[in-house]
């Protein structure tokens, strides 16, 4: 057989959950029983690849024969045999399993820079990275550039911190370069704690070498010999792949002593977090590495002057660092040209919630929210009505429909009442309650507040209590004003970013959805029918077929009725869990 066959199977966290590893071995089995030897470098290769972005269609498999790529979606282990025999051996792709138009629409408006190799290369194989130009940028930086030149390129590229705050990266590096010290550190912040964000996980799992390469270049620019990657404990696969990548780099001479014979030394250690959201904050993260409780300290000095163990430190986010090798190779002008006037390049977002196409996307800065949600995301699931898009996680806010044409960039999103944040983008529709959404984020920030400063520790607790009161139907007149006043105080007086931004979800939902707050407080009603204490479930007699599906699933035994006759919910027994609502095929169970 004279074919060049390459099979790529997604084995990111989402891919593995969808059976990625089983399908990978199924392919190897099916190929060898067909007499085709699958190896990593021969004519036929089966690869593990990282996150492809479109997790909702997992498992995605690429079959590339003589350069022609076919992508299959929703692949299950029992589909492998047919794909191998019909497509690979006979040359007839199994058309009904191939991705459709919507898959291509999902990718059309994207611009993949950081994610360009994620989902294409084998994250566990350094050669796979080197083949696509990996470590060329590090070689260039170490052999042909001096620190000032590197800093200049990064400054000129307009790259800003992708962790969310948007501090210009080149400026941070320059400050650290100018700080005089015998020891300096590079830290990669992989403590991606925002709920609803998984950009950094995908990069660490799918293209770990790009992060390491970014760190090597940073180390050269500031004159550091030791770096740390701080990864959340909740990301075991990212820890494993990063460790593998570091080990391979040490063996091949990209890390360690005398890198590439240039006399430059650099080592990287992985530090596993232990589950604390506040450790994503720069000073808290450094205290955590120092072996202390991860509590923020007042920022008397920029960490470029006094950071980890009081030494000059650059702390960059995963995505920021993964951009670096590309900028070094392709130049500052190219990168700056991709974005807006104030911010260069692209940004990865985790587009989730009530959109049809959920997944990881990378777009040029300056694209509108509408393009992201409707063109890439394919619009709202079930064609329901769009209500808001939540960006920036617990530090961000909810942006309503009238701001859908806002440009995605640090400043415009701030004007719309939210923040860019690390890249979570959760779409909410008419079935989501905005007061409940604000409460959800406050539950989060309240439990993650480290407790060091009073405004955050007690203030968020009080905010949460008021929101709980409102959602349980005990809201009082004046509660909205109290929420606003307290929010402003917390913002103004908290020690770190967690407290300073924690009230944002409350403020932005009051600003744009005040009517929902009023409905809860005055009418004691939840317009979206979400808040348990304000709704009741009932069965529409004329729709009910008497099939008994609701009765069988009810955990509280609250549904009465005889077969083929309309059923009834006993409100005294109903615990409002919503199980019957989702169990009824005829939409006879309703809530209001």
């Amino acid at each position: 057989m004279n074919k060049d066959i390459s099979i790529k199977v997604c084995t990111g966290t989402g891919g593995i959950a969808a059976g990625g590893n089983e399908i990978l071995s199924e392919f190897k089995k099916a190929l060898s029983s067909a007499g085709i030897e699958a190896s990593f470098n021969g004519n036929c290769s089966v690869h593990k690849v990282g996150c492809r972005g479109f997790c909702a269609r997992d498992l995605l498999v690429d079959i590339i024969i003589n350069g022609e790529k076919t992508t299959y979606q929703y692949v299950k282990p029992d589909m492998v045999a047919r794909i191998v025999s019909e497509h690979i051996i006979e040359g007839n792709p199994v058309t009904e399993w191939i991705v459709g138009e919507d898959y291509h629409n999902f990718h059309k408006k994207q611009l993949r820079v950081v994610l360009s190799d994620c989902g294409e290369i084998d994250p566990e194989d350094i050669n796979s990275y080197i083949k696509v130009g990996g470590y060329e940028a590090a070689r260039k930086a170490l052999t042909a550039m001096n620190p000032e030149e590197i800093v200049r390129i990064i400054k000129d590229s307009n790259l800003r911190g992708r962790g969310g705050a948007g501090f210009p990266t080149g400026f941070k590096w320059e400050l650290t370069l100018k700080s005089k010290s015998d020891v300096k550190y590079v830290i990669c912040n992989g403590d991606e704690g925002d709920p609803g964000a998984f950009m950094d996980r995908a990069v660490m799992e799918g293209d770990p070498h790009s992060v390491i390469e970014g760190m090597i270049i940073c180390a050269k620019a500031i004159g550091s010999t030791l770096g740390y990657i701080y990864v959340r404990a909740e990301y075991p696969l990212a820890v494993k792949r990063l460790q593998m990548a570091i080990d391979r780099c040490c063996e091949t001479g990209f890390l360690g002593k005398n890198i590439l014979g240039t006399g430059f030394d650099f080592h990287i250690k992985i530090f596993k977090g232990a589950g604390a959201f506040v450790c994503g904050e720069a000073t808290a993260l450094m205290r955590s590495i120092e072996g202390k409780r991860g509590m923020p300290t007042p920022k008397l000095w920029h960490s470029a002057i006094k950071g980890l163990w009081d030494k000059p430190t650059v702390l960059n986010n995963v995505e920021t660092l993964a951009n670096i090798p590309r900028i070094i190779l392709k130049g500052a002008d190219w990168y700056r040209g991709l974005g807006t006037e104030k911010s260069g390049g692209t940004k990865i977002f985790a587009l989730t919630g009530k959109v049809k196409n959920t997944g990881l996307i990378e777009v040029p800065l300056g694209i509108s929210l509408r393009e992201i949600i409707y063109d890439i995301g394919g619009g709202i699931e079930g064609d329901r009505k769009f209500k808001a898009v939540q960006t920036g996680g617990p530090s961000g806010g909810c942006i309503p429909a009238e701001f859908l044409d806002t440009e995605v960039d640090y400043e415009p999103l701030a004007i719309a009442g939210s923040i860019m944040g690390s890249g979570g983008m959760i779409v909410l529709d008419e079935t989501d309650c905005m007061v409940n959404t604000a409460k959800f984020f406050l539950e989060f920030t309240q439990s993650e507040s480290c407790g060091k400063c009073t405004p955050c520790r007690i203030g968020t607790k009080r905010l949460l209590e008021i929101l709980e009161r409102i959602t349980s139907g005990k809201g009082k007149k004046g509660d909205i004003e109290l929420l606003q006043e307290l929010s402003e105080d917390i913002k103004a007086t908290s020690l770190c970013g967690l407290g300073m931004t924690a009230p944002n979800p409350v403020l932005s939902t009051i600003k744009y959805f005040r009517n929902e707050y009023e409905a809860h407080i005055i009418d004691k009603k939840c317009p979206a029918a979400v808040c348990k204490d304000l709704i009741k479930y009932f069965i529409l007699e004329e729709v009910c077929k008497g099939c008994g599906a609701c009765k069988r699933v009810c955990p509280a035994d609250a549904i009465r009725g005889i077969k083929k006759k309309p059923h009834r919910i006993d409100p005294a027994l109903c615990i409002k869990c919503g199980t019957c609502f989702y169990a009824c095929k005829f939409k006879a169970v309703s809530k209001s």
Partner: protein
Amino acid sequence: MEKKLERILKNYVKDECNIISTLQDVQEILGYIPEEAVNVLSKKLDIPTSRLFGIITFYSQFHLKPRGENVITVCRGTACHVNGSERLINRLFLELEIPPGGDTTDDLRFTVEKVNCIGACGIAPAVVLNNKVRGKMTFEKLMREIRNIKAGE
């Protein structure tokens, strides 16, 4: 236990920043961090127990009480929240008869815990069942898995 701790400490370089990773190793081997272990560590490492407890109670990953043989971690990230994770947790607590205020069944077979976000938002709601991530979880699917575990024991 002391022997197990000795083995962990053999790899320990006396450096403040190793405390967290040492505690992670202890929990990995013992399943949780018993008070006794903290006392032993404190003596061997010459670190006050108050400091160790301070660290253990600060990070949500450390547990001072024994946990169930099977751990079900339900993701509470935003994407999972809007896709019904709260409903999932409430029913799970009910069905497994977990005592109020606790997270583990009386027979120590199951622990149900919440996690802030595991970053599997594309397949929300996500659940980690004994270290394996499962996406698009429904209560029925989860109960089937739990029954399988119970039958297999």
